[in-house]
């Protein structure tokens, strides 16, 4: 279980980006965080992953206070984070990265299985370098695969839909559902996509650094869909914000 108590983060310039957030995320749940751009969602999950330190508040994982644990320690305790903007590495291949993430050498079939979960063919990608030669959607999907490779207690995905095509998106939604059904770990997904929101167990809406509302999907989603500014896309990729 992940628990945030009065978590806040203020920039060195004094801007309050995350304000006094209390949040409890149960084990094995798929929780989707949504909210307008700039509302503090990425900042919030970076605080959870230990990439940023909260200005105040405490963070607990399975009852243990991890507020003072650094990124490496939190990773070892079972937190995995898929960056919103994947990082590029010259000289490191997709296989290298997946193996680092998994913590072991990986036979081709496993690489194939992992990349398949994000709609990529291993034959084509296994030896590709994680450099500028990959498209935005490709690096995004590889980034997601590195988190899947970790089989973590808590996996965080930051706007996994960004830049990926509709077919891969469908595959990704299925993958999230599979993980949800297996109940192996907790999934925390930042997303604006109706299709991801509609498979959530719970939805948390963040606005201006605070939790605006949170609750079971069936309670929150209808409220979001009723909002007048909701965009609609003919392919069924509906953006809530």
């Amino acid at each position, binding site marked *: 279980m992940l628990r945030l108590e009065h978590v806040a983060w203020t920039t060195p310039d004094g801007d309050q980006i995350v304000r006094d957030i209390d949040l409890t995320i149960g084990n094995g749940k798929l929780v989707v965080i949504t909210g307008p751009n700039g509302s503090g969602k990425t900042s919030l999950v970076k605080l959870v992953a230990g990439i940023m330190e909260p200005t105040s508040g405490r963070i607990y994982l399975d009852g243990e206070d991890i507020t003072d644990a650094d990124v*490496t320690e939190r990773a070892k305790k079972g937190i*995995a984070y898929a960056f919103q903007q994947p*990082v590029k590495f010259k000289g*490191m291949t997709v296989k290298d990265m997946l193996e680092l993430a998994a913590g072991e050498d990986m036979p081709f079939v496993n690489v194939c299985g992992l990349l398949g979960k994000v709609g990529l063919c291993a034959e084509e990608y296994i030896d590709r370098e994680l450099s500028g030669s990959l498209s935005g959607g490709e690096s995004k999907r590889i980034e997601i695969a590195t988190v899947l490779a970790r089989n973590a207690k808590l996996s965080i995905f930051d706007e996994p839909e960004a830049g990926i095509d509709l077919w891969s998106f469908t595959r990704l939604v299925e993958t999230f559902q599979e993980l949800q059904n297996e109940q192996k770990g907790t999934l925390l997904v930042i997303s604006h996509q109706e299709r991801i929101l509609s498979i959530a167990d719970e939805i948390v809406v963040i606005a201006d650094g605070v939790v605006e509302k949170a609750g079971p999907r069936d309670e929150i989603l209808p409220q979001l869909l009723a909002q007048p500014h909701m965009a609609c896309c003919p392919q069924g990729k509906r953006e809530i914000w």
Partner: protein
Amino acid sequence: MNKITETLMRIVSEYDGDLKGAYNIREDGGCAARQSTENIKIESKEDKPGLEVHIKAGTKGETVSIPACVTRGGVDDLVYNDFFVGEDADVTIVAGCGVHTDDGGDARHNGIHRFFLAKGAKVLYTEKHVGTGEGTGKKSIDPVTEIFMEEDSVLEMDTVQIRGVDRSVRKTSATLAARAKLVVRERIMTDGEDFAQTDFDVVLNGEDSGADLVSRSVARGKSRQVFNSWMRGMNRCTGHSECDAILANDANVVAAPALEADHVDAELIHEAAIGKIAGEQILKLRTLGLTEEEAEEKIISGFLK
């Protein structure tokens, strides 16, 4: 050959108790062993130290190894090796070099290599450099490589300076005829007070000739590196050079690439970047459970791979 040569050879060549194909093992300026094959003749030069290697036209898939080792201080080895690669031959040339000193004497190897590629010849040339030993003497390797490429020939050069070389000045020049292709991949790591300089001079003479130079280096400690390249397009051709350096501690890197086009259809590109390891790369690897130090090592070894 002595024990040190054996150890060095395991690092810089494909030696595993044995070398395949044609070879010449040079130890402290002398010849420790040599073998020619039916298609590849290795002979000593008459007028100066060094070898003449003749590779018959049409030779396919064979390897020539010419490891050179300096195993003690006080040796300053200078050698001239010429390779004549016949038409349509397709071979691998391995020229590893190791320098070792256990005392205060300097150990230096200076290999001057010339490659003459006949029409359609294809060569993969690999060169690994390493310095070992606890001596205070300076270990230096100063290779000079001159490449002459006839029509449709291809040369791929892989050069790696692994560690422990105090000083190296590497000069590589190439002249390309029509449709000839040159690919150079260089990897350099310096640390402590090391100094490494690379000078490339590539002349794209022939129509549709092409060159691609990629240099990746890591400079740590108080080491210094200089990258100079001059690529000249004298005809319709393509040239690309790239110099990427990771800098750590108090190291210093100079990258001075130059391009010269003497023909309206010469397409020449250069990219250069120098900087420390990106913080977000370290962060990403830490989110996978690596410590900061482990992350740095991974990034550097990947980069130099």
